[in-house]
């Protein structure tokens, strides 16, 4: 495939990479840029483990062609705990026991992040809808939902 330069803003920094614009944003992030926090569970938009924010919206990075990031803001899990302290969403995940194997966690946290940006006080149904594209096989989602509700409270103060 022909390579092309794609420029975008990644976690607050400008990046320019030569890549096949039709390869996935997920492989660009993981394989080229070494950001391994974003996970891959299916490669076809069904598990949400690869969720990142594209201009603030949660997307499955495995379905987004790398070229689509051109000129946009891409935010990954690595951006949330910059400076070493946990983001309130991450804190809430820890406190509520929402992390078991942790493989779905980065994607879940990013879906929660997108939700709370657009709706700072979501109800239980909104939370469920927001994470309905993120599969978790360990938790039954209950403590994840509790964590997102708790994170909303934390972010309010």
């Amino acid at each position, binding site marked *: 495939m022909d390579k092309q330069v794609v420029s975008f803003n990644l976690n607050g920094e400008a990046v320019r990479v030569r890549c096949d614009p039709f390869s996935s944003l997920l492989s660009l992030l993981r394989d080229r840029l070494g950001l*391994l*926090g*974003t*996970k*891959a*569970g*299916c*490669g*076809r938009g*069904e*598990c949400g*483990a690869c969720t990142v924010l594209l201009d603030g919206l949660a997307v499955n990075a495995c379905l987004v062609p790398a070229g689509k990031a051109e000129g946009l803001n891409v935010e*990954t*899990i*690595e951006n*949330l*705990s910059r400076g070493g302290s*946990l983001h309130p969403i*991450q804190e809430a*995940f*820890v*406190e*509520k*026991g929402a*992390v*078991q*194997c*942790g*493989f*779905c*966690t*980065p994607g879940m*946290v990013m879906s929660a992040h997108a939700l709370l940006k657009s709706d700072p006080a979501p109800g239980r149904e909104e*939370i*469920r*809808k927001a*994470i*309905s*594209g*993120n*599969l*978790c*096989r*360990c*938790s*039954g*989602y*209950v*403590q*994840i*939902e509790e964590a997102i509700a708790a994170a909303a409270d934390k972010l309010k103060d």
Partner: protein
Amino acid sequence: MIRRNIKAGEGKEGFPGARGFYDPEVWAKVTGRARYGIDLALPGMLQGKILRSPHPHALIRNVDLSRARSLPGVRAVLSGTGLGAKPYGIVFDDENPLALDRVRYIGDEVAAVAAVDEQTALEALQMISVEYEPLSAVFDPEEALLKGAVTLHDDFPGNIAWENRINRGEAEAAFKDADLVVEDTYALPSFHPGYIEPISCIAESEKFDGLTLHTALQSPHIVREILAGVLGLSISRVRVISPVMGGGFGGRVYGNLKLYLLAAFLSRAAGAPVKMQLTREEEFTVGRPMVAAMIKMKMALKEDGTFLARQADIITDNGAYSAQAPWVSKTLSERNDSLYHIPSISTRVRLVYTNKVPTGQYRAYGNQLANFACESLIDRAAGKLGMDPLRLRLKNCIGPGDTSVHGLQIKSCALSRCLQDAADAIGWTERKKGRGYGISAAIHAGGSIVFNPDFRGASARARLELDGRVTIVTGEQDYGQGAHGAFALIAARALSRVPGEINIVSRDTILTPFSIGALGMRQTTIGGRAVQLAAEDLLARIRDCAAELAGEEVVPEGGAFRTSSGRLIEPVGIAAFYCAKTSGLALTGEGRYVPEKSDYDQSGYGNIAVTYSFAAHACEVEIDRETGALTVHRFVAVHDSGRIVNLLTARGQVYGGVAQGLGMACSEGYIFEEGRVANPTFSGYRIPTALDLPSIETLFIQTDDPEGPYGAKGLGEIVQVPTPAAVANAVANALGEPVNELPLTAEKISRLLHGWECAD
């Protein structure tokens, strides 16, 4: 024996220090820094890919690798004949790393390639030409048992991979004398553990004798032995290092042995590390789901509801190769018999080869499959007797001090309390019109001791570090279920420390004591007990050393020691003193937990675990009579897993197990078309999403178990066992019709409602 009943969220958090603590790795996981198998890479690493059979059954006439070998970037290409490997297996040796002269299911491994990148490896696969001669295939286990059916393995005539008969008491007479006999046939498809991280590995073979395998396993020590055997290596030259595990649920006890073996062979041939990873589709089509089961069952009762006998004829679908399926079939055929007093049992179970995905294991070893049949049939009997299903169960419950019909020795047991509390919490006595209610109970081995009757227990080491912290070294495994956190809490309790001061080292066969691993609910009960003993042993040694350092008597005080003259001696000082005195050694403690030898005999009679955990689940459902759509409104799960180590993670285990059980009950399951998996995707297989689950209430009845560490018992597997039956019973209650097939999709329920079976 029952201490108290703890409601989730009700203050009591578990062992000291449990509040706000559960997993030493949680910080890495939540920030995206935890490294899983898919994240690993080694310098010079190649990518491996597998060529698979497109036929369900065929002879291999010829495999031509030459074109693939000449593709630039290809470093190794292998076929079965070139490997010279002996057949291997878990229970019996019915598999080869690559097919030799015959393939037995769609997906069977035929050739393997290692290349500089994935694209090149995939291209090389296209350049391998294989000549097949298709054979007739058999997909239905009942057909596979018929005379004249095509045979899959010459060593297993009649396609029976394994069979067993169990007779206890006088079943025949009991059926003759019974006031009531109920019977039905129950069918369950194959279910996949569905861990979200697909299995992957990196193999680094050494030139002569040696292999390092990087992959996350629930039983790395046992896998190491199998790999050494097939690869012809010395066991001590094989090292398995596990990264963080993205879910296991039994599916990573052995993981995907074939993938590991092929990676090792490719690495040996190429002289470089080889990474291999299953795609999600491969997870479903060649990963190892649990057996499908067909259970014909009959029960004899007295008019007053006393259980007299149970008879079962069970067929389990092995697929093309057998892995752990014989053990799964055995547990499936027996475990539920020990939940109640049932004096007579007559069971036949046959595990049958078919040309489909080979099977493995998922969470409760088939206990959950048979639970659906047993607990459904009990409800049927209750209906016939005009008796409340709860009362019928309570009348027959097994209890503390009992020995079950198969010889299981019940120690702590709050089964009847679980049932009663589940019923109370769901509102059993004020059931609403228009809703269906169901209840189901379960028993599960809390720390299996018959995996290897000579090796029943576990050991652990505890070491005082120079910084005063304590490191626990264990061969047990954390797949996300919280074993490491539990071990830290147990060790902290023994040492009067806070759990944050405990390091856990596991996941490397070179560093850790041999262990059977995360299966049979061994981790907390058996592994945890070894950790407790190691910590206690270390404490005694620290105390002696403190006394030597102080030159006077000492008594422990909050993790440190107080001398008779009133000085406080901290662990840091003791560690430094010992290190200097021994020129570099650290104080260590050893814990060996060796459970009593079992009286387990040839007929399978005898105790199989150090203790047993119990549960009852209840739910309220509603059915849309137009569409057949099922809504589970409320779900209650009550568990006796002894003393709860950490309430937060215990709740998480229950929620997750119930969610998996609800998946089995409502939506999941393999669909086959002529041996091909028709739904090899998450969306086709349908594991529950956040929108699919009801509110789940968890309750723990805390018994004090005499065997487990500080009274704790296992929880990780039983959480899923009673769920499918509780839902099925609620659906049957709502419909007024028995239910005998899972999953209960809207189509199936419609058929029950409108009698559509003749239409298709």
